[in-house]
């Protein structure tokens, strides 16, 4: 059964190459995108931390900034 599934009448090498290429492309794209996201999020948190109290208060008045900070602390 397992041999049949892997051999696929002689086409296994082609079928599995196509599927492995697809899935590894997915994994690469996912991890590259995730890394970029985390990098930008960390940059935002670092910049936010360096603001003085007034500027931080003003920045926090924007809902999206609060969301970014909340997401960063959850990750």
């Amino acid at each position: 059964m397992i041999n049949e599934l892997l051999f696929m009448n002689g086409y296994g090498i082609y079928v599995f190459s196509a599927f492995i290429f697809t899935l590894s492309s997915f994994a690469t794209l996912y991890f590259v995108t995730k890394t970029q996201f985390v990098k930008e999020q960390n940059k935002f948190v670092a910049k936010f931390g360096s603001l003085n109290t007034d500027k931080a208060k003003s920045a926090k008045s924007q809902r999206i900034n609060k969301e970014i900070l909340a997401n960063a602390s959850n990750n």
Partner: protein
Amino acid sequence: MFKLFHPNKIFQITSKAPKYILFLFVIVLSVGLTEALILSPEDYKQSDAVRIMYVHVPAAWISLGIFSSITFLSISGFIFKNKNFFLISKSLAPSGFVFNVIALVTGAIWGKPTWGTWWAWDARITSMLILALFYAMYLISWRIYESEEKVFKITTFITILGIVNIPIIKYSVDWWNTLHQPASINILSKSSIHSSMLFPLLIMTAAFALFSLLIFLMKYNTELIKIKNKGLDRL
């Protein structure tokens, strides 16, 4: 109406959605892989090589769909002067490009056992390669141009040129003699593909669509945070 698309409003949704989409994607992909590799029948002519169709065809469909969406959004962004449309287009492009490359590579792998060659300058394959070049030009433009105005104009121009290629890809099998067979799936008329093969194909298409949605959301969130980073610099 465009206020509904304001980044501040949609970030609340886009920041939380990826984890649910990822979960759904893993489930749908697992079902799709089981169907495609184990449960679906082999073809009477191509035998098990037909299983490559379950990754090749959805990848090609989605890359065409994404490029059409990018063109529509870029033109709309230009007409309505809405930057967010450009941001959405930019976030869609990486997955569209990767799907285009997957379609080309898996097509080459499928070509070897069925046609006896990895590559042929046939109309469908060549037009898909041209689409990959348009995707590459689009992505490179975002990297090399600093000025927003300029990059909006250039990327819109690239998509308008590239969209001409989409009907060529679609109808190339009817207009010219190519190695590709005519379309087996028709929305308006009866499809010639058997339901036992159509079902896994649709499941895999759904999985690929979920993956492109996942990448789009992650990329879009990254772009929004980049903008907010610049905003903090100006405070």
